């Protein structure tokens, strides 16, 4: 990831924590400093050994330029984006697949082999590399391998490759910033949980019972220090 990008994220994390600190009873913030001290190239909380491991993987290159170009095309067929949401290739998908294939070497042979099959198939059918044929021609090949439960015998291995690629592209997209926004995940930030929203409860025909409502934490009391004096076990 781009260092500027991670810096931005860090500052967002820091801002969130600062917001929380305003709720403190005492005034000495002894747990601040989250946005300070960000010298390392990998600033997601690595130990020195882990940092070296990441750097080591990043210094190697597994896929060829042609393989990466082929994957970018396939990634955009799998996740083309919608409206303001970009296609997979604009979300760092090939960087991710390059990295994860070194990190989880089990991906290497099936991925390389699948991409090689695709190149051969493209040459067989169209006498050109997969990156050089038209979108319609690309889709003709993809259509034959995209439905693992309904695939012709001669394409069974290629369908397994495509399922692996679909997994990696899907997971890569939905763990990217635009993908998470498209999905609509709303968490990973300081907030106060006060139960399922009423309209959702209504929609599902569910409700909190009296006992739960009585004992559950009241959001306005969360910053109080619990007083055990009158508590009877």
């Amino acid at each position, binding site marked *: *990831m781009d260092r500027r990008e991670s810096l931005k*994220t860090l500052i967002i994390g820091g801002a969130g924590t600062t917001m929380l*600190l305003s709720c403190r*009873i005492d005034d000495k913030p002894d*747990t601040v*400093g989250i946005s300070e001290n960000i010298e390392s190239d990998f600033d*997601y909380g690595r130990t020195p050994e*882990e940092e070296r491991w990441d750097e080591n993987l990043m210094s190697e290159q597994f896929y060829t330029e042609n393989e990466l170009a082929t994957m970018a095309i396939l990634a955009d067929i*799998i996740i*083309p*984006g*919608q409206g303001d949401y970009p296609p997979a290739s604009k979300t760092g998908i090939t960087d*991710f697949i390059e990295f*994860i294939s070194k990190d*989880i070497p089990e991906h290497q042979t099936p991925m390389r082999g699948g991409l090689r099959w695709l190149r051969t198939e493209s040459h067989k059918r169209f006498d050109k590399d997969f990156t050089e044929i038209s979108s319609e021609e690309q889709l003709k090949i993809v259509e034959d391998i*995209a*439905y*693992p*439960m309904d695939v012709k015998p001669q394409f069974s291995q290629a369908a397994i490759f495509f399922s692996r690629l*679909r*997994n990696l592209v*899907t*997971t890569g997209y*939905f*763990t990217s910033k635009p*993908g*998470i926004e*498209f*999905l*609509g*995940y*709303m*968490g*990973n*930030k*300081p*907030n*106060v*949980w*006060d139960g*399922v*929203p009423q*309209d*959702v*409860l209504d*929609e*599902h025909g*569910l409700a*909190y019972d009296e006992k*739960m409502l009585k*004992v*559950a*934490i*009241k959001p306005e*009391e*969360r910053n109080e*220090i619990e007083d*055990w004096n009158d*508590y009877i*076990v």
Partner: protein
Amino acid sequence: MSFQIIEQSTKYDVCIVGSGAGGGMAAKILADKGFKIALVEAGPNFDPANPEQRTQLRWPYESPRRGASTVRAFGDFDMAYGGWQIDGEPYTKAPGTEFDWFRSQMVGGRTNHWGRISLRFGPLDFKRKDFDGKGDNWPIGYEDVRPYYDKVDKLIGVFGTKENIPNEPDGFFLPPPKPRLHELYLKKGTSKVGIPMIPSRLSILTKRVNKKRQACFYCNQCSRSCSVYGDFSSSSVLVNPAIETGNVDLFTNAMVREVITDENGKASGVYYINKEDGKDYRIKAKVVILAASACSSARILLNSKSTTHPNGLANSSEVVGKYLHDSTGASRMAFMPELMDRKRYNEDGVGGMHMYTPWWLNDDKNLGFSRGYHIEYWGGMGMPSYGFGFNTEFLHTLAPQVLGDRKAGGYGVGLMQDVKRFYGSTLGMAGRGESIPRAENRCEIDSQKVDKYGIPVLKFNYKWSEEEVKQAAHMQDSFEAIIKSIGAIPLGDKPGKETNYGLENPGRIIHEVGTTRMGADATTSVLNEYNQAHDVSNLFVVDGGAFVSQADKNPTWTILALAWRASDYLAEEMKKGNI
């Protein structure tokens, strides 16, 4: 260069080996009482508020592997330095047996990432032999430990509800968070099939217990350790305050090789290897407390051989390393069509389930197995990480209505929309059960192998019995009943006999205990009822090793209570001049 052991000039009152739940608690209690303490930790320093170590509130795209579990066993953001294997620190298994050993080497140990499930043992849990004739009773009962559970509740904080269930004692509970949507469905479903669900009991601060720790802000990331100390980690909650007393010297990256004994056979300190400079050091202390984790403490004792202790220290009973036992574990996942197309809102909640199922069949003697299990649940609209969206074609086959005239698998905008529609519609549950401790399930020193520090390593020898297998079969039946009760579809085939009903390998639940068990009889136990070695009066073990049996309860709360109790006893004995 000649081999040299470097001596620390200070002679400490107490040397504590390990800074997890047991060691952290002992350090806190004894430091508060004014004892001078050397706290020795095999890993680096750690404070969840340290920005360089923080993983809390990070996004999957901050990790080049998107949080995958290749480097850290529970994902890139999990706060455990170590894992199932550690480079240069191997362990072995006897042929035909299985044990997976999870180690976390850092200040706070495994408490930095644990599930915060904080259950008291009940009266029955200390005396199971009286009830079913199997295993052994503890030398103490619930009433002995209860005052310490109370103190732990108040010092550390745990939410829950008073339920008056006989073997699930209530405590000093902070208010619980309201259940999530899938938990409401589960509560409704399980009540129809006679399986109870109550608010979970987790050491997470829904309210504050002191001014140094803030209340939970509901990010669901306790496994990353909380930077505002809103959950219990030994590092932030016990070790830091202990150090603030000025009575504790913390030794990090210090791998303890053995306990040193004097001519009278008493403990006089420890030898350790400093991982940074590779040199050997010696710490002198009047008392040694081991809290390195059940198996690591057993290993240290077994490696502490001398002419007065030829079998290893505190091992005249030859029980050290034996009676090793872990919780049983099995799980099942399900897909719930009614949870498709969910309205989005922030459902993170606390770091774990808001409701769980305590064991409900204590009175049923016809189950075919002796001990119970509780059920933990997960589900909801969580933060995606590596693996999210895999096998969408499989969900397609379970919910073909989303496809229209498309086929399972596929690509394009339709696939993107499907992933979105399925989000939050899968859930899962896992049983965590009590196994019966047996002497033959053990760890011992491997006579053939040392680690990179030259320390002989552990060899495990552990097999489940029919008791645990039958319990797992019962879990699977319960899971199917629960899944059916909410109108969900179980994923995959029901694990059957050929896989021991999905029973996980021993060690896998990371509740391993029992290797230095306590007892009234010095010939069949290592420690007395105050965690003090029968053979060596100034040696204590305050980790899970002391457990006689482990209930279906996660061990941490009991480790904390017993470590506090042992520390009070030790302080009294020192005052009286008995130690």
